[in-house]
């Protein structure tokens, strides 16, 4: 059995009520910012504020360290700063803004239905794709936007008139992410699988075997691994070599309790460590070198829906479907 006097991370956890489903967590300066299903933004940590940013749910969000940007089903994009001051950046009326991404130099991308928009320093441009946009991501270098949709993804340089490039793969592509070195593009699919392309030659990668849809993914601090949710364990695909994960098996860490699956992952920004949130509300820290696990949050039955590290790795924010939020300072 376990000794009683072992230092406990669960005791360091600061929990509070977010009021409704925590959709995402980001950071504004030192504090965490939570986006909720009822359109609220909660600032917690060093500063505290609670503002109603949207009439309905927050569907997508991002943070640049200074402000949290939220897109809602009220057709608006709102930026909230640490004081809780909000600014409406986009208002398109009664269409949902499903996706939002932040790019270089303050560029903002969003999508409503089949149309993706980019607002840069100079102008606002839009591009219609074949189906409703599943996800948006800016490339790590250059002003390039990836748009996931049905049967593939489109790569678009919004500042040029060059025709967008389409990467095809049958099926519905939802989330999208570039590898930090910009060599690969990865999408999460409606099926429980990831798809990927090596951008230099369009080579396909299909990462499958998940029991459920992948909703959360992120690269490790050393950029060598892509960690994902969707299975009973956190799944890490190798991306270090030229061929990425092609033909390789993933690593699997930290299985959940009986029948529980990983619903959110967040890689520590500096160390070889990741946080995994589970469908029962449990959160674990996992050291990638040896798979050591530390319990951060005890299961309470509600899936973890948001998990994020502050840029310096000193604070972990988490939230659940039932509207519980928590912070762990390291």
């Amino acid at each position: 059995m376990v000794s009683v006097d072992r230092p406990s991370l669960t005791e360091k956890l600061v929990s509070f009520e977010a009021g409704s489903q925590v959709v995402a967590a980001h950071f504004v300066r030192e504090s965490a910012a939570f986006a909720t299903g009822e359109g609220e933004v909660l600032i917690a940590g060093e500063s505290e504020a609670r503002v109603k940013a949207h009439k309905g749910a927050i569907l997508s969000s991002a943070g640049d360290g200074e402000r949290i940007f939220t897109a809602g089903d009220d057709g608006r994009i709102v930026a909230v700063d640490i004081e809780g001051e909000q600014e409406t950046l986009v208002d398109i009326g009664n269409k949902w803004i499903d996706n939002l991404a932040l790019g270089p130099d303050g560029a903002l991308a969003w999508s409503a239905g089949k149309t993706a928009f980019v607002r840069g320093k100079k102008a606002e441009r839009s591009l219609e794709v074949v189906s409703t946009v599943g996800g948006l991501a800016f490339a790590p270098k250059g002003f390039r936007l990836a748009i996931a949709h049905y049967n593939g993804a489109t790569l678009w340089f919004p500042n040029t008139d060059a025709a967008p490039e389409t990467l095809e793969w049958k099926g519905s592509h939802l989330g999208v992410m570039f590898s930090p070195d910009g060599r690969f593009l990865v999408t999460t699919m409606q099926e429980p699988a990831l798809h990927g392309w090596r951008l230099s030659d369009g080579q396909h990668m299909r990462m499958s075997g998940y029991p459920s849809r992948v909703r959360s993914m992120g690269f490790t601090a050393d950029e060598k691994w892509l960690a994902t949710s969707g299975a009973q364990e956190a799944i890490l695909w190798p991306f270090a070599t030229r061929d990425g994960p092609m033909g390789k098996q993933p690593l699997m860490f930290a299985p959940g309790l009986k029948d529980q699956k990983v619903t959110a992952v967040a890689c520590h920004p500096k160390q070889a460590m990741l946080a995994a949130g589970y469908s029962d509300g449990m959160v674990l820290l996992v050291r990638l070198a040896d798979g050591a696990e530390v319990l951060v949050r005890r299961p309470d039955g509600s899936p973890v829906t948001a998990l994020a590290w502050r840029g310096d790795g000193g604070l972990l924010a988490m939230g659940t479907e039932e509207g519980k939020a928590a912070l762990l300072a390291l």
Partner: protein
Amino acid sequence: MDHRNSGLPELRILKLKSATADLIVSQRQPFASLMGRCGPVMTEKEERCHFSRETCRGTPYPLNQTRPDPPGRVYFGRFRMSDKIPVTVLTGYLGAGKTTLLNRILSEPHGKKYAVIVNEFGEIGIDNELVVGADEEVFEMNNGCVCCTVRGDLIRIIDGLLKRKGQFDGILVETTGLADPAPVAQTFFMDENVGAKTALDAVVTVADAKWLKDRLKDAPEAKNQIGFADIILLNKTDLVSAEELKDVELRIRAINPYAKIYRTRRCDVEIKSLLGQGAFDLQRILEIEPSFLEKDEHDGHDHHHDHGDGHHHHHHGGGLKHYHDEEMQSISLKTEKPLDPEKFLPWVNELSANEGPKILRLKGILSFKDDPQRFVIQGVHMVLDGDHQREWKEGEKRDSRLVLIGRDLDQKKIEEGFLACAA
């Protein structure tokens, strides 16, 4: 004992391991990253959409590996209800009166709040922040199965609505007049999240009493909508004579003898008789007798009117005209011999796998040999679900019934197959 259950934290060192099939889930498919060509990498088996648990299971989560399924349990679709948000699908050919019905549901006081997914924003006269526009994007699942289609836009919208859980009691999905209801229905069984949080309640079809007969001839969509329906509002009855009304009802019955039919003028039916039906709830499959009872939802005044216009009620009783639809039929099977689950379940799986694209709806109440409980089963195309429902009551007739509505079904072959399942 697991440290996370002991209530005390503990460092646990796990050996680094790489994925193998049996480590991950009961799904027999290992984690794999493949170099591929464009298009799904499929085995021949998958391409046939054999209804195997690995490939075409309704929801992608694994079969429960620790608790063995009770014998004879078909487990693909998970039509479980409980506290799920009910979803009513509203179909009907162009101009039949869907929007009238929708506006009534939204404007009348019935104590419930509905989120409404519509295909045409402008037609809804009600300003309601829970009205959402949809794009009717039908996506094929990437498993090579042609009938495993879902509505991608619904998945996205329902995911979004679920973030506001608690703000509404149910969801209404309006489809365009030309839509096939199947992808809508299948969405609730094939998408993991949607299926876990919401439950299809019923498919309600609004039909135009004057024009339905013509549409059944020239519009396959209209026929699908009738075949698929749990409830049919035979609307605009004031525009046809009593004979014509009777005739169109018989045509509906030729396709779908099981749906409830309400005769209406301006969709004037009690809202509560449309919502909360549990038509896809296994626990609520009570009887599957054809609906011969004519529901007349007109108010008292209309009753008198009907009786007062000199119409002769000579159709009542026997002597009904009987129509046969060449293309779409219902098949009703019955046997008093107890069935062998070891024969029946493989047979019904095989039937769904091979004939799934042609089967719109399937429902059954079955008596298995030496089983004190009734077994109920239902299906939509290739998605099947079955479970024990309750003990057979004392004195209750223990026979097995299976009904199917579909296109070009081989009645003889299906009947022989069914009867061969006797224990």
